[in-house]
């Protein structure tokens, strides 16, 4: 049972870490494309 709980904890931590890594990657892509390609991105106020 302890093994199961530890595995769950590890799964939560790794999933959270990788998910945030993916989100960070997306933000980085935004930044890079805005700087390198440019011209395509607009920010609107809704």
């Amino acid at each position, binding site marked *: *049972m302890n093994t*199961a709980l530890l595995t769950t904890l*590890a*799964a939560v931590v790794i*999933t959270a870490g990788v*998910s945030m890594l993916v989100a960070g990657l997306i933000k980085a892509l935004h930044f890079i494309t805005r700087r390198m390609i440019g011209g395509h991105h607009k*920010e609107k106020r809704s």
Partner: protein
Amino acid sequence: MNFSDLFGIFQGLQTLAHASPLIIAARVGFMVLGLFLVYLGKRGILEPLLMVPMGLGMSAVNAGVLVLDTGAPGTLFVDPLATGDERIFALLQIDFLQPIYTFMFSNGLIACFVFMGIGVLLDVGYVLARPFLSMFLALCAELGTFLTFPVAVALGLNFNDSASIAMVGGADGPMVLYTSLMLSRDLFVPIGVVAYLYLGLTYGGYPYLIKFLVPPKLRAIPVVDRKVLVVTSEEKLAFAVIGCTVLCLLFPVAAPLFFSLFLGVAVREAGLHYFVDFIGGPLLYGATLFLGLTLGVLCEATTILNPKVFLLLFLGIFALLMSGIGGIAGGYIVYFFSGRKFNPVIGIAGVSCVPTTAKVAQKCVSEVAPGVLILPHALGANISGVITSAIIAAIYVTLVPLLK
């Protein structure tokens, strides 16, 4: 010739009469259940694309049991329990769905085809517009996937079976199939059937959960973005390519799933219309047809009758319920941190049943506030849910076999 020889002409009836009472009850029960699933599919209560072929397959396979050359009862549909190259090669020439099962189902190819189709239908722009928010909600909506694993172990399942049934909490059919094929080959038929039956129920059950947990006043909160980012197709394509490469690098075990999903996204964003038409049409619907059909014919009484089935039924509903509660809890967390300007219903869309849960969330909001649009946020959480489910599947498939 006597009467029993004449009775032998109708082998379905003969094998039914000679079976044990438990098998008789199970076969008749599955025949009726199959017809009921077709009815529920036709009425739109469950997903008709899956339920009609699945229900018909379930009824037909339990009716069509005959006495084989070996003298044992069996069918001419498929034998999922066959082992050994010689036996499987022989069955490929006898059972008409054995080629589909052996070459497409048991290696996860059919799940990957469905994933490619989902990828083509996804607009990742919703995630790219609000990546951290979407990922956070998706993470909260995996509560059932996380909690079910230790609960299943506590109830007596082994680690592999526990991880497989826990994936039902992700509400992603192909993911459950893939994980159970990798981890628990003995139970993947009942787990797959339980998963797809319950996924059909999210459309009917989650609205009650939303109404129970979120009062109408909060359901009516409009979501206002301070900034709306316009995401170009180049950016979406770059995300698909880099995201796929990074995730495959981190979790090679689930690389086929990541590759299939992001291939669909890449094909869509690259503007390859012929591929989009093929993957989003014939491939997706063909795979869905054979997925439903194969799941149905796998529900043959002697294959699926397992003492663990009732436990799986309980754990499956527990996983989905916890994920729904987790998603709404995530919505409440964002609601409080945003100064009460966020609609907590969006959280349930983190359960990755694309696009069902996003549509359910929008429907529940529209009932109390017809002008409020939460669908873009909900779809962002929904698509992120697919990614987090794939990550958890990869973690379980990698980590669980190491446990002793």
